[in-house]
């Protein structure tokens, strides 16, 4: 790509030098002027507004009336000592880890399954993918009904000796005391993970399938020639080759799960003892229902930082990979 550009520029200097060159730069400025509005919009509405939110998070604006007097890190200090926010941190961590692991394992498994040249593969593919076209709100509403305690699923599970209160369960598994909360895996969160997995696994399947299709058949052929079994081919060759895709899937799923709001808001809400609460829900309720703007802004900034932790290195490395 670079070489093409160089030859084009040299061409421009060879022929009637000055006129041609000026025309080129004028055109470039003209082109740039079409990008400029977007740059300005992003600069204001992304970076400017993040800065403004950061400013609010350091203010005393915790009522209907804006109050920008400087409060330092008071709002952050409050949050980290707050029972609800501590529960949110635990829930986000548990949700992120469970959700990403299941999506990766299930996504990879189903993609490999679909790659076996089964007849009717496209039907299965469409079935695995379609939840992605739905809104998290729809998913939340439907799964709220499906996993309602004492429903069909539970009637069935009771017969085999397993009973679950799903998202109304307030138990924390493997709990140990930490701050004001019980640290561990809230049982109710598992219900939310199931719904999220149902919705997002198709995404991972699609990405892994694209990755599998990009691996040339010769790779497998060569391994078969060397006497490797199908299982070995996957374990030793194919799955390692899919690792860059796993990285992408982790990044994408992590940023979805760290800012998750609508699924939980529609499905369970904060839950008793905040067993299914997450920062996104807390931020929404405290800011827009409770008028604690500074607290809400502080939550938002913490969410942003947690997402940036994943995204910034990813963006930088993918830029490097490009050039």
């Amino acid at each position, binding site marked *: *790509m670079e070489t093409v550009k160089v030859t084009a520029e040299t*061409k421009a200097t060879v022929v009637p030098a000055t006129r041609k060159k000026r025309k080129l730069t004028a055109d470039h400025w003209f082109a740039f002027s079409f990008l400029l509005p977007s740059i300005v919009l992003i600069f204001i509405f992304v970076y400017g507004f993040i800065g403004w939110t950061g400013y609010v998070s350091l203010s005393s604006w915790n009522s209907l009336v804006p109050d920008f007097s400087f409060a330092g890190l008071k709002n952050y200090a409050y949050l980290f000592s707050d029972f609800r926010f501590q529960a949110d941190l635990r829930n986000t961590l548990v949700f992120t880890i469970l959700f990403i692991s299941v999506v990766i394992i299930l996504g990879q498994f189903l993609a490999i399954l679909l790659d076996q040249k089964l007849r009717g593969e496209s039907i299965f593919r469409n079935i695995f993918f*379609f939840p992605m076209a*739905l809104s998290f709100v729809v998913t939340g509403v439907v799964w709220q009904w499906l996993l309602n305690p004492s429903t*069909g699923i539970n009637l069935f599970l009771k017969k085999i000796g397993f009973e679950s209160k799903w998202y109304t369960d307030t138990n924390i598994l493997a709990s140990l005391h930490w701050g004001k909360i019980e640290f561990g895996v809230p049982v109710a969160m598992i219900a939310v993970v199931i719904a999220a997995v149902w919705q997002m696994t198709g995404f991972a399947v699609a990405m892994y399938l694209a990755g599998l299709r990009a691996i040339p058949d010769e790779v497998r052929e060569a391994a078969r020639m060397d006497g490797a079994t199908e299982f070995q081919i996957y374990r030793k060759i194919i799955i390692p080759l899919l690792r860059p895709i796993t990285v992408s899937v982790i990044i994408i799923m992590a940023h979805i799960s760290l800012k998750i709001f609508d699924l939980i808001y*529609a499905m369970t809400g904060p839950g008793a003892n905040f067993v299914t609460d997450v920062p996104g829900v807390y931020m929404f309720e405290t800011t827009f229902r409770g008028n604690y703007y500074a607290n809400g802004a502080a939550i938002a900034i913490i969410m*942003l930082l947690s997402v940036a932790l994943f995204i910034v290195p990813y963006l930088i490395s993918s830029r490097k*990979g490009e050039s």
Partner: protein
Amino acid sequence: MKKRTMSQAVLYVICIIASLFFLMPVYVMLVTSVKPLDEVTLADMWKLPTTFDFSSYTTAFAKLAPNFLNSLYLVVPATLLSALLGSLNGYVLSKWRFKGADTIFTLILFGMFIPYQSILIPLIQFLREIGLYNTISGLVFVHVVYGIPITTLMFRNFYAAIPDEMIESAKIDGAGFLRIFRYIMIPLSLTGFVVVAIWQFTNIWNEFLFAVTITTSAQQPIMVALQNLSGSQIVQWNVQMAGALLAALPTLLVYIFLGKYFVRGLLAGSVKG
């Protein structure tokens, strides 16, 4: 050969079990939505209805129709505008590159990953200032602005596949920025427009956070109205399921008929440019 058919059968069984998991909510949704209210009990959730009763659909439709229209008024202009903006940005960033273009692109891209909570408070203040708070136009504006990163990324990827030589020779023939865009880029990226439009349509239709914070009652898009259905004291689950189905219908139809493009959009937006 026998071993092969055996393992094939196992694969099919696994595929079918997985399919049941993905289709189970659809079954329950459909079955519940055509039951009369007195049959909608938790214990009978899995049973087929004894009589078909479509009254839940008429109830849901009556409640959701205005919001359904709001969503249409929102999603059509927002999709068209953000696709247009994205295509121009992608064109400049791939074919009229300048010093620092990659840095600017990365800075733009960051905007698609941020939690929107982190811009929501100033955004609402801003919309109040300019009188767009609680309006569909306000939501259109918001979706166009925050759609810039993803649409720019998608178009930049599409345009990268168009050879630079083509642009260079058009330039030598005297074509300028707009002529090249109109006569080369647009005709060659029609699929790109379809992919981006479907992607934006789906995302904006399904979006909830902006919708619930920027609009109130009469202006609310469908997803907020659907969520509000369950906010009442007694949840009529059959109406709720019918409502969920109505709300999901447009994006489901798009997926059923244009699923190929939907999946391409998904890959174009996730695999880095």
